[in-house]
Each structure stands twice: as structure tokens, then as C-alpha cells.
């Protein structure tokens, strides 16, 4: 048993080492002096083995930083490790980074040499005279049909802000250049100095081979510069500036477009270029004869998805097929994409055991080789239909074709319909009056309720409030001095919240004077009481002076109503 495991492990290890590949690449082949490039050594199919970086006169290598990945695609596992170095040139000129060796197990793998050109800082833009532009291309050697990012940089000093740009013009015949119109901003250190950078992100997808040129490019930028025409002291104080338009010309960059290699080209290659993954699913995997199966093929990856044809399927004679639906999505620059092909299949026989193999052949420009993505046949279980038959059935009778309804706008209307008012309802006085009314009514109602409650619960308050009204009623009905006096007693009793029956002239004076009533008023009241007493005891008739006394009492009640007791 142990022996078998060891043999299995060795076979697996042999298989792993047999698939190992090592590729070195730099993010740019042409840089200005003072900049650095990123060198990446990617080891596919292994998870160890550090590269031996050779010494190159004039180049300094810093690093590495590593990243590992493990993936399971198309039923196959793969692992990789990447080593990243920052390469800084010490002088201008052409450099060759020689083959880099990587020891994995007992084998040594080598990368291909890389050419690096370091130019003077002023060759693509004079740092002393910003703004200037430059073209950044990861590699100047590309394959036809390959999609490669190509960015156009505008570089300017932070102290002279860029207000806008326009009129971007370029020559890129045969390169199929596309760019995003939105300027992406950032910053970059060049020769140890901080600059602001605006990038037109783009990509090329060459359509012809040979040595082509990207550029020259032309564009105009608007810079905000201090206003030199006016009073410089005030300009500096108040930040007065003016907009100056500056034209920028960027030199052409040569791009070598290689044809796809003839060597190793599979017979079924149909022009797909990029790095593509294939995923195939079929649902359900267990069906009855006549039932539909949704067969989905998903192709995704880096490259121009438009170059990827629909994969060829094997024999589908035992299935009734429907027209496949295809949905393609891609990014704005066509550097990544995804295509999902869905086909409905109807199993005609219980003899069907699997779905056919799916195969996609493409050229991988990074590995510089043709590759095949395949999906092993998917197992199916097809049972007899509901009638218990296992013979071929007519799919057309089982599935009614989906009815396609026509679509158009709804026809005209014959009446005018709702008409807008000249003034919206919410802007009319009626609306605001109706808004105010419930608030006022509510406040009034609550106030009234409080008053009623107080009347019921506070006797003194109730007597005080009613005093004048009741007294005036009694006075109005009084026909003799006795009734006039009774009205006065009632009024004072209610106002002072004391029994009315015992109120005499002296009691009234005693009660009123301490409460701050004017002495004259108290005296007048006392006089009224005495006049009534005199009249009553003397037996004077109502005709003599009653009206004057009643009037006098009314006046005194009015005066007392104005007084806070």
C-alpha cells in the first residue's frame, strides 16, 4: 500500500514538473532615466524555486516580493508563484536583462532575455517645461489580434493646476486603438520630483502585421496660471489667475506587430487570441426522454472576446436542438470579456449517456503558444418518458414553441385627459387656509376644554368669572333697594369667594381695602350700602333715587372688574 502511494506521488510530481514554465516580463521596455520598471518572474506549475537574478552593469534590482496562486479551472489544478523586482537604471542606454534561472526540483528553467531602453528624461518630455505627454505601452512587440493596454500620460507640475484638456488627436493606423475619454488623475515621482499625472487609458488591438507607429499625438490642455498682467501683490493676495491653453505633442512610438506563429497551430484554431477559461454546465443531469436540458458554455478571460468563436460541439444527433442564445459582456477597452452560450437540448433516447466534449483552441500571447481549453464530456442519465417508452420522441410535439408577441407603443388617446390648473392647488390660499384651520380649531378646542375643566373644579374661579354677569342680571331686574343691595352682596361674595348673606358696608370695606382697592372706590361702595340701608329702613319708595343708585352700583361693579382682587 505504502509503495503504491510513493509511486503515485512520484507520478504526480513528474506530471507537475513536466508542466512547469517560467516567464519573465517587465511592465515597460522603454523608460526615462530616473524611473524604474517592475520585473516579474512568473513560475507556472510550481510553488517554490526562487530566481537567481544575474548582475547587470548599471541596473539595480530590489526585491523580491512574492505572490502565489492556486486555481482549479476546466477540471485541472494549477499553481503559480510570482517574484516581483523593482529595477532602477543607474545610467541611460540599452540594457539586456539576461536569462534568469530558476531551480525547481532537479531541473533548472530559464527565461528569455529582456531588452530595456533607458532614455534621457527630456526625450519624451522636458521636465523643466511641463506639461508634457508620453505614451506607456507594456511591450512594443505584440501579436495581431492581441489586446494590449496603451496609456497616454499628461504630466504637469502640481503648482500649475490643470483645468481641462481637449482636442486629443492621434495616429494609430492598423493598431485598432480605443481609449476612455475620462482623464484618470494621479501623481508620479520622476527624478525624485512629484508631478501630477492625467492618464487617457486605452488599448490597442492590431489588425495588420509589421512595424507600425502609435502617434504622434496632439492635445490641448488648459492650465490655471497666476495672472501676471495685473498688480502682482493683489493677485497673490486674492489668488487671481488666468487660464492658459498649451498644445502638447507626443512623439510616435514604434509597435512591432507579429503574425500568429504557424508552428504548433492546431487545425481547429479559429483566431481566438488571449487567455481564456472554459466552464461548461448542463442542468439537469438526470432527465426523462423529451425533457429539456440547458447546456451552458461560459468563456471568460483576458483578450478581445470578439475574436473568440463559439466552441464546436461534438455530435448532437441524439438530441433535438434549439437555436443557442449568446450573451457577450466586455469592458470598455475590450481587454477582458465573457461570453455565455446557452443551448436547450432535448434528449431523444435513453441510450444517451453523456453530452459531447467542448473544445476551444486559442493563442496565448503571454506564453507565446497555442493552447486548448477542453471540458470533459458531462455524464447524463436519461430515463424513459412518462409513457414508459424509451424510443425517440418528437420534441416538437412535447414543447410548444414560445409565442413571440409583437411590441409597440400604445395608440393615441381621443380625449384631452387631465388638464393642469393654472395655479397648483398647493399654491392657492384655499390650501393654506385649510392647513391653518385644523391647527387653530385644535388649539381653540383644547383651550375651551381647559377652561371648562377649571370651571368645574375651581369654585372660587367659577364664582369670580360669573360675578359681574350675575350681578348685572340682578340689578337689571331690581325693583327696590333691597334687591339692589342683594345684587351688590352677591357680586362681592362671588368676587371675594365669601358668603354673600353676611356682607355689609363695613364687611365690604374690611375685605376690599387690604386687597388694594382704591379707598375712594371702597368709600363709594360703602356709601351705596348705606344708601340702600337708609332707603330700606326709612321706607323710601323705589321711585326716589333707585335708578341713580342702580346706575352707581353698575359703575362700581365696572370699576371693581378692572381691579385685581
Amino acid at each position: 500500500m505504502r509503495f503504491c502511494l510513493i509511486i503515485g506521488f512520484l507520478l504526480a510530481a513528474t506530471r507537475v514538473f513536466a508542466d512547469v514554465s517560467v516567464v519573465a516580463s517587465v511592465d515597460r521596455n522603454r523608460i526615462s532615466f530616473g524611473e524604474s520598471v517592475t520585473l516579474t518572474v512568473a513560475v507556472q506549475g510550481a510553488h517554490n524555486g526562487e530566481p537567481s537574478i544575474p548582475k547587470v552593469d548599471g541596473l539595480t534590482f530590489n526585491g523580491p516580493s512574492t505572490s502565489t496562486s492556486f486555481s482549479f479551472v476546466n477540471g485541472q489544478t494549477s499553481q503559480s508563484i510570482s517574484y516581483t523586482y523593482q529595477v532602477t537604471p543607474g545610467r541611460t542606454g540599452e540594457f539586456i536583462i539576461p536569462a534568469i534561472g530558476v531551480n525547481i526540483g532537479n531541473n533548472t528553467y530559464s527565461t528569455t532575455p529582456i531588452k530595456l531602453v533607458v532614455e534621457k528624461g527630456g526625450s519624451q518630455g522636458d521636465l523643466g517645461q511641463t506639461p508634457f505627454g508620453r505614451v506607456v505601452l507594456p511591450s512594443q512587440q505584440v501579436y495581431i489580434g492581441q489586446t494590449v493596454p496603451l496609456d497616454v500620460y499628461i504630466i504637469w507640475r502640481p503648482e500649475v493646476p490643470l483645468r481641462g484638456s481637449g482636442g486629443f488627436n492621434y495616429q494609430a493606423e492598423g493598431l485598432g486603438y480605443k481609449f476612455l475619454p475620462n482623464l484618470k488623475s494621479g501623481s508620479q515621482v520622476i527624478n525624485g520630483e512629484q508631478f501630477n499625472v492625467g492618464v487617457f487609458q486605452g488599448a490597442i488591438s492590431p489588425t495588420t502585421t509589421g512595424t507600425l507607429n502609435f502617434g504622434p499625438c496632439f492635445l490641448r490642455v488648459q492650465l490655471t496660471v497666476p495672472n501676471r498682467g495685473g498688480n502682482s501683490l493683489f493677485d497673490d493676495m486674492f489668488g487671481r489667475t488666468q487660464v492658459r491653453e498649451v498644445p502638447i505633442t507626443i512623439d510616435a512610438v514604434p509597435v512591432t506587430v507579429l503574425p500568429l506563429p504557424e508552428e504548433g497551430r492546431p487545425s481547429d484554431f479559429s483566431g481566438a487570441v488571449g487567455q481564456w477559461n472554459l466552464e461548461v454546465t448542463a442542468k439537469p443531469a438526470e432527465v426523462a426522454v423529451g425533457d429539456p436540458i440547458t447546456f451552458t458554455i461560459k468563456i471568460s478571460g483576458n483578450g478581445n472576446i470578439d475574436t473568440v468563436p463559439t466552441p464546436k460541439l461534438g455530435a448532437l444527433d441524439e438530441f433535438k436542438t434549439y437555436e443557442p442564445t449568446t450573451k457577450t459582456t466586455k469592458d470598455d477597452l475590450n481587454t477582458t470579456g465573457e461570453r455565455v452560450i446557452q443551448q436547450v437540448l432535448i434528449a431523444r433516447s435513453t441510450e444517451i449517456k453523456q453530452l459531447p466534449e467542448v473544445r476551444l483552441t486559442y493563442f496565448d500571447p503571454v506564453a507565446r503558444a497555442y493552447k486548448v481549453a477542453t471540458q470533459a464530456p458531462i455524464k447524463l442519465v436519461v430515463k424513459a418518458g412518462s409513457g414508459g417508452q424509451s424510443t425517440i420522441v418528437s420534441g416538437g410535439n412535447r414543447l410548444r414553441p414560445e409565442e413571440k408577441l409583437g411590441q409597440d407603443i400604445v395608440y393615441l388617446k381621443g380625449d384631452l385627459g387631465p388638464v393642469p390648473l393654472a395655479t397648483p392647488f398647493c399654491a392657492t390660499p384655499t390650501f393654506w387656509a385649510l392647513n391653518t384651520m385644523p391647527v387653530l380649531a385644535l388649539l381653540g378646542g383644547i383651550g375651551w376644554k381647559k377652561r371648562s375643566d377649571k370651571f368645574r373644579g375651581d369654585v372660587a374661579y367659577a364664582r369670580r368669572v360669573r360675578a359681574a354677569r350675575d350681578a348685572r342680571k340682578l340689578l337689571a331686574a331690581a325693583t327696590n333697594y333691597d334687591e339692589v343691595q342683594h345684587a351688590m352682596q352677591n357680586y362681592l361674595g362671588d368676587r371675594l369667594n365669601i358668603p354673600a348673606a353676611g356682607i355689609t358696608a363695613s364687611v365690604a370695606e374690611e375685605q376690599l381695602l387690604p386687597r388694594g382697592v382704591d379707598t375712594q372706590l371702597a368709600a363709594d361702595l360703602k356709601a351705596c350700602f348705606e344708601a340702600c340701608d337708609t332707603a330700606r329702613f326709612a321706607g323710601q319708595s323705589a321711585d326716589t333715587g333707585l335708578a341713580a343708585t342702580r346706575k352707581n352700583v353698575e359703575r362700581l361693579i365696572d370699576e371693581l372688574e378692572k381691579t385685581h382682587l
Partner: protein
Amino acid sequence: MNLRRHIYKVVILVWLLGLSVAIAAPSDDLKAANQLYDAGKFAEAAVAYEKIEPKAAHVYYNLGNAWFRQDKLGLAILNYAQARRLAPRDPDILANLKFAQQRLGVDDVNTPPRATQRFLRSVIERCTASEWSAGELVGLWLLALAIGACVYIPKARAAFLVIAVAGFFVFGFSSFALSDQVISNHIAPQAIVVAAETEARFAPLSDSTVHFRLAEGTRVAIREDRGQWLFVERADGQQGWVKAESIGRITNF
């Protein structure tokens, strides 16, 4: 029971007062314009619809159809949107608006990105501003009457409190919807892109950098008006300057 009857009367009265629209009889001008449309003279029909006053909901709707037939889908969407402001629940208007937006592929662009925003927008646009005004009044009266009843009829306080809470929510949401339709529309009027493709720029200058592009039929809010240039905001929050002639304003509310 008596109180309930009064509340019912008030609600009906306020609702009737709140209705800002009236159903108008078909006019001869509309019939004539429809005949031009039926004869396939869509350009003439559009001119005839433009002349009809007042601009009722179905005039805008028919005008939208006339522009649609001329393949001016931006103008069609603008007029359907105008019609929807007046008759927000008319199924034909909603169907044609949706169809035209789908034809231009802007139905997603014109939809707010967040689910809560989408829900609020769909609810608020279900009624006209006048209907929300009436709703606000109903809510306020209900709230005031229920609070008053709580004070005067303490035995039924619990029931009236429920009515008061309901009234408060009706009042609150109607006020919110009304302010959204009227005040927001005053601050940032809604508009539709009617030009085939419009570039939104960083500055109101012809050669300033293009920030993004607005497809025909895209709904925008006008944040600033500088005559020939408008500063607009798309439903996803992107902002930029566009030329005024490429935008049509939705005027009714």
C-alpha cells in the same frame, strides 16, 4: 358616529378640493391632429399637438407618440414624462414611457441605484402634486380631529390615538412627497436628454474634458442654469455641464 360622519365629509371635501385636474372634453384641434397622425403625417401631427392649449395629459401623450414615430425617442420620452406628471397612473402613458426607454436602453440609467430610492420614487410618482396636497390636508385634519377627540372623549382615547398616528403618517409622508415634487423640482428641475448623444463636461466650455456621455432619453436634474450651459446630475449621481439645447425640461407638476 356623528363625529365619524363629519370626518368623512371633511375628507371628501378636502379630496375634491385637492383635485387640481379636470377631465376635459375632446377638442377639435386634438381630433384634427389625431387625423394627421392616422394619415402617417407624424411631423405635421407633432406641430398640431404642440399648438393645442391647454396642454392636457393626453396631448403630451399623443405628441410623444408622434415623436416616437419620427424616431425622436428623446423627445417622445420627454412628452411621456410630461403626461405622467399629469396622469401618473395612466397605464398607457406608463407603458409607452417604459417602451421608449427600453428602446433607447436608458431604463436602467433613469432608475435610482439604491432600492430605497427606487421605492420612494415609485411611490411619490404614483400621485400628482395636487393629490399629495389633498393627502396632506386629509392627514392633518385627521390628526387634529383625532387629538381633539382624545381630549373630549377620553373613554375612546386608545382608538382615537390610533387614528391620530395614522393621520400623522399620512400627513408626514404626503408633505414629504409634496415637497419632493414641488420644492425639489423648483431647486433642481427634472429634464430629459433629447439630443442623440450629449457630452457632459467638467466645465461649461466647448473644449473642456468630457466627463461622461449622456444617452438620448436619460433623465437628469438641472442643478445650475447658465443660459447656454446647464449643470446636470444623472440618477447615479454623476454631474457635468451640458449644452442647454440638448435638454428638454419637464415643466408640469
